[in-house]
């Protein structure tokens, strides 16, 4: 049984560009959450998806948007990239009280 898988693992983008990150949850997990982890800090909650709807959102601007598909996989989109968006983006899938994290996508904005 595969765990949480994320793609791409590393990417470099230019300021002002847009990026899409993808996440496949662990089998049977219906809830996907996204976190941003800047260098030297703890992960910060971006938003959570359940039944294809954004259920709750952290303190992130509208440039950050997402989507969940019927198979529970999810995408995180960031528009108009800023240098400060450089971070590790983590996807977590959960079912009930159990949560698993993927290995993350390392985004560098230059």
């Amino acid at each position, binding site marked *: 049984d595969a765990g949480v898988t994320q793609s791409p693992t590393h990417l470099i983008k230019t300021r002002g560009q847009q990026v899409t990150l993808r996440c496949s949850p662990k089998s049977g997990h219906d809830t996907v959450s996204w976190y941003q982890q800047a260098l030297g800090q703890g992960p910060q909650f971006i938003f959570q998806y359940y039944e294809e709807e954004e259920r709750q959102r952290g303190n992130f601007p509208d440039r950050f948007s997402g989507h969940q598909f019927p198979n529970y996989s999810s995408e995180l989109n960031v528009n108009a990239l800023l240098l400060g968006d450089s971070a590790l983006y983590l996807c*977590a899938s959960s079912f009930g009280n159990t949560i698993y994290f993927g290995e993350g996508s390392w985004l560098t904005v230059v």
Partner: protein
Amino acid sequence: GIQVEQSPPDLILQEGANSTLRCNFSDSVNNLQWFHQNPWGQLINLFYIPSGTKQNGRLSATTVATERYSLLYISSSQTTDSGVYFCAVEVDSWGKLQFGAGTQVVVTP
């Protein structure tokens, strides 16, 4: 929002030593988890521990919910224990996590 503070921020241990990591939180929470982040970035859950004490091999954790703190004990540390340890509290029933800033642990041979 809930504040989560971890101490110490950094810890250097010689192989075989024991250590204690602390997590303080500012309000009552649904649950508390400890994670280990490996050098490649993956977070691995170590404990779900809203209260009481749990042990898993050389690791154990204690949460005193009434006093709003949790402790993670590492005994007989090994080089593979190196990494960043995070405490995270569940701030709602949907599992939203609020993380601390982490403790960077380096275990030297």
